[in-house]
């Protein structure tokens, strides 16, 4: 039972990190209708900046610079690439983000080589013991930070004028533009926010149980894709639910790996995708996604 609770809590914590990534992904999709396949490389960029700078600047300033850096990379992608596209086929734009992803990932992995970079976080490998349940401090920090950021983001999305313009642009770009909302600015902001969220997620994907920032981190970041899809690409609630589902599934499948040995080694990494396929079979639009209706 203790193992189960530990795995569940660990899964919720890592799930909240996935939710953070998926949220950025969904924000970009809502604001611009572009599926951003370069999201994992945004995350890697944020993590890399933090990892390189934390020796000189100390951890917190480095983290801030990392977040700003990833936001800048996101904004740059929007400004220099997405905005230049004149057509209107969004799946072609999705392919462009794949091109951007190839570029960024190649550059970052070339810089990293085979190194495993530490991000210099203050939690180290200490654990907390609450009533017989052992949890790493990093996991608690991840859960709290992700929860806080998601709350702030959702509140801003709901109540600030920035959030209102964002939602208006998502609802109907033409009308929003006529109302004086600058669509370019909205999508720029969406990309920057997504980059910033990804950079925070990069921190928590590379702290304690995991060894550090390495090439494989981008594979971990990819799990936010099934999270976003199974929740529904156009739903922020879906991103949260999807992230948590993916986190818990992965944690449980990894934890009970020995009982699942007939499925082969490393089933934990596969579990999120299997859940996604299962959900898509029943609900093609995801759990919370709006079922697409079209008027001809």
């Amino acid at each position, binding site marked *: 039972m203790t193992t189960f609770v530990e795995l569940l809590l660990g899964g919720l914590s890592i799930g909240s990190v996935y939710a953070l990534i998926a949220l950025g992904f969904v924000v970009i999709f809502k604001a611009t209708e572009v599926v951003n396949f370069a999201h994992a490389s945004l995350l890697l960029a944020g993590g890399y900046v933090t990892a390189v700078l934390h020796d000189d600047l100390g951890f917190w300033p480095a983290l801030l610079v990392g977040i700003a850096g990833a936001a800048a990379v996101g904004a740059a992608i929007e400004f220099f690439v997405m905005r230049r596209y004149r*057509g*209107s086929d969004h*799946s072609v734009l999705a392919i462009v983000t794949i091109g951007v992803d190839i570029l960024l990932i*190649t550059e970052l992995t*070339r810089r990293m080589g085979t190194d495993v970079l530490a991000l210099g976080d203050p939690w180290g490998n200490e654990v907390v013991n609450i009533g017989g349940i052992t949890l790493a401090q990093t996991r608690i920090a991840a859960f709290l930070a992700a929860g806080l950021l998601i709350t702030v983001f959702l509140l801003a999305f709901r109540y600030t004028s920035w959030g209102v313009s964002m939602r208006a642009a998502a609802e109907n770009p033409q009308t929003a533009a006529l109302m004086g909302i600058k669509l370019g600015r909205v999508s720029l902001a969406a990309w920057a926010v997504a980059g910033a969220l990804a950079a925070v997620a990069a921190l928590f994907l590379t702290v304690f149980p995991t060894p550090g920032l390495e090439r494989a981190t981008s594979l971990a970041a990819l799990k936010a894709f099934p999270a976003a899809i199974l929740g529904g690409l156009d739903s922020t609630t879906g991103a949260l639910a999807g992230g948590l589902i993916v986190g818990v599934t992965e944690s449980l499948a990894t934890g009970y790996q020995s009982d699942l040995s007939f499925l082969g080694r490393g089933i934990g990494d596969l579990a999120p*995708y299997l859940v*996604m396929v299962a959900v898509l079979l029943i609900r093609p639009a995801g759990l919370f996604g709006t079922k697409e209706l079209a008027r*001809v």
Partner: protein
Amino acid sequence: MSDTTAEAPAGAPAATGSASGGPESLTDRLRSPRTYAVLVGSLLLLVLPFYLDRFWLQSGLFAMAAAIGAIGLNMLTGATGQLSMGHAFFLAVGAYGYCVLAGESSTENGHTLTGLGLPTWLAAILAVLLAGAAGGVFSPIAGRLRGAYLGIATLALIFIGQHVLFNAGSLTGGYNGRPVPPLSVFGFTFDDSELVVAAVPFGSSEKLWYAGLLALLLSALFARGVLRGRPGRAMNAIRDHRIAAGVMGVPVARYRAGVFVLSSMYAGLAGVLLALVFQRTVPEYFGMILSLEYLAMIVIGGLGSVAGAVIGAAFVSLLPQVFTHYSDSLPLVSAPGTGGLAPGEASRYLYGAAVVAVVLFLPGGLARLGLTRTKKPKTPRNPAVPRQSAAPNPSAAPKNPAAPKNPATPNNPGEKS
């Protein structure tokens, strides 16, 4: 808004429209420089094995295999607008399917490898069908999802594929992969046994070269037929306006699933050819990067056209080889591990940038680049109207007055074959 919608997909219909043989007479063809380019090109391809060494022949074979796979992906992504990140999975199904079906049961490094020991030609065909079946299993999802959604859903295939390849040791050989039995057709074996043609020793690469050319030619012709015929029109209609296509009687879900199956069969064939060239299949090769490479190929070459897929495949798969071979004499590029850009990285930069640049500045890809130059004077003759994405469907109908109501039924056998 509406004018841009017409502009984006123009690449594909323009490529098929202006190159179609219908209005061109024989003398027209004899006059056009294109005919001679094709003739010289194919002659060149036929004599190359007599002059090139093994390295370049293998590179060429990679490019051919890639071209076959890219043609399949282009039908799915380019012509039907369904993004697939899972192409590497179907390549793996083809490659490993061939190994399992054709290989003998054996023990290697303490692993037992299961093999059915079928005749190799039969194994090759069955492997292609197996890849198609794998696509069919995924079709409940492939038929319902569209565009980029499908792209993420097919990500699952890559991870499932990698998991199976690493874990099903008795079938796949696990981490070390398994050897590929050489293809043998009617007693002629594509292996390294010496055969001298015109004083040139023919090894496996030289022999496979012709098999590869034939496979590429046949698959290109078949794809061209599909894309230019009614199925192609229906696919483009689905890409450009799903609802309009549905209203006109195109069974959207069935078409999407069908194209997905067809494209996985192409991938399977490419996988078989790749396995034959490699002579050993390793699981790491069939990862996500491979899928991204295939997407890069079709975007760079040109979405929706067969020629585009072939050009893009040649570009993306020959680039690393060129960089590897000339790494000493190229600036910035150096052999792996010496500090500079490794050839693989250099080529990844180049095709990553090419993907972005082509979409932004050259919609239609490299294939269209040549076309617009040579065909410019002729364009006024082709009225623009039939190029409109939805229009071809009604215009195709009078040709076939006996097959009304459900335009898809006559095409279904074509999809399955």
